[in-house]
């Protein structure tokens, strides 16, 4: 029942939003639909239906779904005020707005379906749907730069998705000689249970394709080329959703397959592969942070860095590293989307995303400026915020097992830290520069996210810790 609601609400409202002409009401309807989805998703903690052929609710995906619908809801609030400004300045026409809202809900539908699916084929379809909707939204401004970004994203994303499908077919082949033909050979709960009997060679090859395919969507270096462009050129709410949610969904797919592989004694250990991809991403992205001129591109690279950290943590494996990785992913989603909320309003106020033209924000726009300072402090990993704690956990658990890896990871983190603070200094302090117009901004989503991140850093509710530890143990 609730599972159905999580899927039907976004799907139905996508159709409705495409049909409604009035553009004041649509932003509210978008927020309302996202809110209802969030309510339905939270109910999944309580109601746990039996896994069917197509859908499943288990301890792992509940975490992702609630996070996803929560950020989806707050982003829809931010999107309301952001889009109103875009309409006023004429960057978007009412027709495009209708398209935008319909696509937003379709994206939510695609992501929820991917998380809830109990069928590796269905999950693949859902991730492809989510990719295509974001491609369309990245290109919505129709500037040359936006079109290039969308085209690049489309090509790289499709190649990634094609590789993932090949991997999916190989997993089915490995399963069908054991489980038998039909839907059972594609269901997660069956795959994990019967994995020890599968042919290890087939599983190995399949995981390579799946890691490269879905890894493209996670934005792991060297498959990341689409990510900074897509973040910089699309509407800012989409950058927030991309960073905060879609990357997680792709990573979720990798995690599911990793647990199948981990259950098979003959298959290779997927950990080292993920650790190296993650570490390369962290180091590469943290150096790339230095020479950015576009504020949204910079935070795009920061997303690559943090997805690298999360992949690294899950690759290390073990209850503690998995716990830290899961928590880091959650906090990164919250922080990064809140940063994009601030950046969106800042870019609207200043009329540019070009960082040398933005200065002295704390003086000209105190709330936005200090919001950005807080966000960058959180994402860079300064102590009172939650990300400090998770990064600390990841580095220390790594140190206990592979000291050299921990040194490399620590250096990458410090490099990124330096770059972000350097840029922040120019953006937030000094004499104000350029326009000081005040856009109608919505601060509630920003404050809600930062509040949660701060609380997580100081005091995690024991119930939540227990839940995350439980999920971390499930992941192996």
């Amino acid at each position, binding site marked *: 029942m609730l599972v159905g609601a999580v899927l039907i609400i976004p799907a139905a409202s996508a159709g409705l939003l495409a049909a409604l002409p009035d553009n004041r009401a649509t932003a509210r309807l978008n927020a309302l639909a996202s809110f209802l989805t969030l309510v339905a998703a939270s109910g999944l903690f309580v109601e746990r239906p039996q896994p069917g052929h197509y859908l499943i609710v288990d301890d792992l995906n509940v975490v992702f779904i609630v996070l996803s619908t929560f950020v989806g809801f707050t982003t829809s609030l931010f999107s309301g005020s952001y889009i109103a400004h875009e309409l006023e300045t004429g960057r978007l026409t009412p027709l495009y707005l209708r398209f935008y809202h319909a696509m937003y809900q379709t994206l939510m539908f695609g992501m929820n379906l991917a998380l809830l699916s109990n*069928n590796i*084929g*269905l999950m*693949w*379809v859902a991730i*492809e*749907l989510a990719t*295509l909707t974001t*491609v*369309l939204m990245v*290109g919505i401004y*129709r500037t*040359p*730069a936006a*079109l*290039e*970004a*969308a*085209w690049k994203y*489309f*090509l790289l994303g*499709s*190649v990634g998705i*094609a*590789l993932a*499908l*090949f991997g*999916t*077919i*190989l997993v*089915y*082949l490995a399963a*069908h*000689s054991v489980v038998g*033909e*039909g*839907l059972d*050979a*594609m269901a997660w709960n069956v795959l994990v249970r019967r994995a020890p009997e599968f*042919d290890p*060679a*087939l599983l190995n*090859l399949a995981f390579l394709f799946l890691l490269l395919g879905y890894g493209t969507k996670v934005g792991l270096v060297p498959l990341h080329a689409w990510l*900074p*462009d897509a973040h*910089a*050129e699309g509407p800012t709410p989409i950058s927030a959703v991309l960073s905060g949610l879609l990357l997680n969904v792709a990573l979720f797919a990798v995690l599911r397959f990793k647990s199948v592989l981990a259950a098979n004694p003959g298959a290779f250990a997927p950990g080292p592969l993920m650790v190296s991809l993650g570490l390369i991403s962290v180091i590469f992205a943290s150096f790339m942070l230095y020479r*950015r*001129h*576009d504020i949204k*591109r910079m935070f795009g690279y920061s997303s690559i860095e943090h997805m690298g950290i999360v992949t690294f943590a899950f690759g290390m494996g073990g209850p503690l590293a998995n716990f830290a990785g899961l928590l880091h992913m959650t906090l990164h989603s919250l922080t990064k989307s809140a940063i994009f909320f601030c950046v969106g309003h800042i870019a609207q106020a200043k009329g540019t995303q*070009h960082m040398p033209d933005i200065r002295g924000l704390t003086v000209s726009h105190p709330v936005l400026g200090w919001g950005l300072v807080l966000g960058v402090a959180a994402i860079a990993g300064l102590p009172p915020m939650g990300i400090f704690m998770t990064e600390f956990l990841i580095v220390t658990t790594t140190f206990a097992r592979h000291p050299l890896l921990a040194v490399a990871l620590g250096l990458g983190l410090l490099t990124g830290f330096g770059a972000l603070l350097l840029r922040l200094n120019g953006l937030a302090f000094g004499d104000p520069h350029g326009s000081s117009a005040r856009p109608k901004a919505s601060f509630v989503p920003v404050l809600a996210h930062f509040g949660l991140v701060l609380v997580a850093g100081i005091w995690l509710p024991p119930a939540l810790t227990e839940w995350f530890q439980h999920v971390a143990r499930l992941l192996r």
Partner: protein
Amino acid sequence: MDRLALDVAHLFAGGLVLVSFMLLYQDRMTGLVNNFALHALVVSLAVAWQAHIQHAPHLYITAAIALVVKAIVIPFALHRIIVQLGIHRTIETVVGIGQTMLAGIGLVALSIIVMLPITAKAGTLTQQDLAFALSVLLLGLLMMISRRNAVSQVVGFMSIENGLILAATGAKGMPLVVEISVAFSILIALIVIGVFLFRIRERFDTVDIHALHEYRGERP
């Protein structure tokens, strides 16, 4: 399974790899699109044959979709786009045709070396189908990186999809979900591509991807 059935399946799958090679050396747009239509025709024949020997009637639907959409509708649409844009003459390649073909041969050898031992337990039919499918996939990727023109990259991508369909039908008894979804995704992809092509045309007066690179996001 009798010998003849296996040989015919082998013939179609091998034919698909051959047509993939033909796609690599096309130097005119019209030729490229016609060749793609042939590619789709071969894949639909291969799928129909699989439906026949596996006694899986639902695969005929997949074959029909491949035939109607990819061998008829999409080539027709692409021809119209090419005429409208006036780009039927030239295809710009990044490296020469000769080197591309050599790389292609290497890729086919690679996929056979990788796939045959791993899938040994899966049965002869599946084994060969998968090796051929991986070859088609890699050749499609090669085509995408060796061409600068938007339309030929799209054709390369669709040839990858054909290879995937071959793999999916070769995996015996794989539920229909995937086949239909592949067909749907191609349809969606075409809409996306169509939109993009027209927008690119509108803004740049060219569909050469190279022109796009001038707008790289970083301006000092």
